[in-house]
């Protein structure tokens, strides 16, 4: 069903006449167009990192992505004169609403040409869909929850994104705001160089804690992957439960994520902290695979030859940066300096492995405890991401 954009924005006082049509994705051909659109949109953007085409297709495939076991998403394409000019997904995450006791719709996968009429038509399509699901407000972008890529980059466009972080053109925040979105929360990304030595004081305290509490930090044992994943999952889901926007992962989601990350991880940078044999804290630092992905250009093969794969593997050997992606401590073990121990050990391992620095991301803007800790380690806030919200 094609809905003329002009007709949809009925709440707007005088909707600009527009020749943009927004249609739901129905055929496999539409789905391909949906997945392929960003490659076209970011063609001339030097910082854009093209995701692997097949990975994106699998992500949207309800049979492959375990998120769809509970969540619902409706994909829409905006076209002008047959040309795709934007895309969006309406997102219904019942687990989020159950966990937070809210009735909140969401949207995601938003990509759009620099045209507020297209953006408005897309948001209206997502809003109408969310409204039909019974929601009064919507939040986003969520692709499709905070456990995956989410948020819009609003500050720090000069550097390319690190692995599994969002990236978008500079004009997106303006589009959101022109369509009535208000900030829901900012997420921060921090830059850290491994050549900067941590302050003496921090190191001293960490050492003391290690002695006093009997903390043993060890790398994850890849040979015992299954049970290690189980331990990490327990920490992950209990460490984040109080955080804004957090949704616990289902077992299927977690296993799926673990399988995907398994190809990427450096075991020495996956650290488990144990107190008296009980795993209580976990930190995961990943090599920033984005330069390698960029080299592949979205495909493992070209002309039937594994050109992308070879480029990817060659570039992967030159990765010099890291992303500290999660650091979680079980309730009851917080504020004891466990985080400092994990930071320091990660830093030490990174230096030994020859990495020059990296990013810590993302942290909630109001998670002062963590933000202060990162600052005290010599981190510099260099990117701001934003999650928006509006009434439907």
């Amino acid at each position, binding site marked *: 069903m094609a809905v003329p954009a002009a007709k949809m924005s009925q709440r707007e006082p005088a909707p600009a006449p527009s020749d943009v049509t927004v249609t739901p994705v129905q*055929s*496999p*051909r539409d789905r391909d167009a949906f997945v392929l659109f960003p490659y076209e949109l970011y063609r001339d953007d030097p910082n854009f990192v093209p995701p*692997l*085409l*097949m*990975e994106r297709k699998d992500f949207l495939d309800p049979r492959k992505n375990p998120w769809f076991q509970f969540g619902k998403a409706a994909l829409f394409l905006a076209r002008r004169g047959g040309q795709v000019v934007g895309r969006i997904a309406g997102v219904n995450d019942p687990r989020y609403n159950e966990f937070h006791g809210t009735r909140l719709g969401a949207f995601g996968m938003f990509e759009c040409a620099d045209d507020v009429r297209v953006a408005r038509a897309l948001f209206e399509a997502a809003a109408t869909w969310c409204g039909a699901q019974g929601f009064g407000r919507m939040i986003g972008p969520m692709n499709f929850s905070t456990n995956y890529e989410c948020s819009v980059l609003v500050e720090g466009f000069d550097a390319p994104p690190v692995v599994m972080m969002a990236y978008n053109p500079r004009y997106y925040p303006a589009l959101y705001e022109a369509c009535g979105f208000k900030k829901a929360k900012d997420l921060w990304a921090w830059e850290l160089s491994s050549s900067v030595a941590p302050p003496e004081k921090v190191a001293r305290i960490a050492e003391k804690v290690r002695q006093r509490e009997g903390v043993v930090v060890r790398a994850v044992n890849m040979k015992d992957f299954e049970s290690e994943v189980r331990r990490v999952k327990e920490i992950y889901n209990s460490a984040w439960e109080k955080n804004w926007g957090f949704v616990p992962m289902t077992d299927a989601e977690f296993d799926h994520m673990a*399988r995907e990350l398994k*190809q990427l991880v450096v075991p020495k940078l996956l650290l488990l902290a144990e107190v008296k044999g009980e795993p209580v804290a976990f930190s995961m630092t990943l090599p920033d695979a984005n330069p390698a992905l960029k080299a592949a250009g979205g*495909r*493992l*093969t*070209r*002309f*039937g030859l*594994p050109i992308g*794969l070879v480029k990817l593997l060659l570039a992967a050997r030159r990765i010099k940066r890291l992303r500290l992606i999660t650091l979680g401590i079980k309730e009851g073990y917080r504020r004891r300096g466990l985080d400092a121990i994990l930071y320091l050990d990660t830093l030490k391992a990174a230096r030994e492995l020859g990495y020059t620095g990296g990013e810590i991301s993302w942290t909630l803007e109001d998670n002062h405890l963590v933000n202060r800790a990162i600052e005290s380690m010599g981190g510099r806030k260099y990117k701001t991401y934003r999650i928006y919200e509006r009434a439907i």
Partner: protein
Amino acid sequence: MADIFDKCASWKDYKIAKATGLYPYFRAIQAIHGSTEVEIEGRRVVMAGSNNYLGLASDPRVKEAALSALKRFGTTCSGSRLLNGTLELHEELEARLARFLNREAAVVVSTGFQTNLAAMSALLGRHDVVFSDRANHASLVDGIRLSFGEERKYRHNDMENLESLLAAAKPNAGKLIASDGVFSMEGDLCNLPKIVELAQKYGARVLVDDAHGLGVLGAHGRGTSEYFGLEAQTDVVMGTFSKSFASLGGVLAGPFEVINYIKHKARPIIFSASITPASVASALEALEIVESEPQRRSRLLDIAEKMHNGFRAMGFDTGVSVTPVVPVLIGDQVKCFRFWKALFETGVFANPVIPPAVEPGHALIRTSYMATHTDEQLDRVLDAFERVGRKMGIIPHARPSTYVPVKVARPGSFVRANQASQRWAKTSAGLAAEQGFSLGQLTKLSSREMANKLFDAVETLTWRAANLQPEDLKRLSKTPLRLWERRGEIPGLLLEKGANLFIKNGKQPEA
């Protein structure tokens, strides 16, 4: 120089179907056991694919009537109705049919197919327009091609489409709306009330091909127009003897001048030998039984209801049908062949219907029933479908918790069609075609596009290989064993996956 036989030599479909053992056509029946069970290739199977709706083809009274006519008049009339081929028997049948159908006159023709050729070619002149349902039987389509009239096709049972075509036609042109009464593959009825209304509004005549409705629908078996109570408004009715009437041939019934004109002008009638005496006599006797034994019709509709609901309870999709034509949606045409084969091996004979008889992606197994089927035979059919359907993954392993019960076209119910499921509607409208990959599309691709398809396939395979997990490998290691266990099905499975590359999916490439 092109040899006209080249296309025959290069026609691959048959060879592929034959080589994979999936060829379903021209199966010779070796013996008949009361027409509800037959023997094919030494295997006794339930016949669930015959149009012998009332089960009269093996009725002793009908057989006896045929025998006595054979003895009286010989094996054939050796000539056209127009000249030496008319017997008293023919005239008696025509008079009886005209009375049965409440018409001024009727003419009987050697086959049902020819009957439509005759009607269309004789009735449609150079300035006439015929409005024809897209799902109409091939004989109507060919009859129109044979005529000089102009054809306007409307989307299946889409009355808005029909009206817009009627409105767009020249007001002073002669107009005929031609539609099947019961659509032979999907089993739904035409929207006769609306067709009649539009015909009156736009000054058109109505012809209903009631091949599958005569003897089955209406309290007296007079077909679709009786069922809707619109006999007076339906100008010409066409019927065949090869379904409910246990014979071979067709009939046109209508106003005397019209039938008389067709009788003298239609070349499919005047240049064809008349129906054999035995066939006329069988039809006559069958007509007697159709009139005197209405319980056969109600039994048939009971069976239709039982079978529809039986299939639906298992999770099959029987679509829009409201009649004893019970189609079961399969989808892919090769899967349909495989299903048909498995069904035959389980003891049921039904008909695979593939493009171009239906839209690509809408292949179905067409089952049809006789009033003489026993409940035990019907349960065997249901059981066979359930087993094969589960094995081939067409229905879930556990029965769905609910299903929408069927509505059957019993006299007085006025239902036309059941609500189609989304999948049925989509495939029936030809919207599934683009998911498949037909040879027609393939021939349209440039070599560059073809190469890109191939490269995409390599990309997909590389991605899958790069993502193999230990448990996947474990599963893969069992594949040879599994393949060995299912070795009989491999050619069929391979064909199903690669079939659309070889077999034309029905749609011709558009020039």
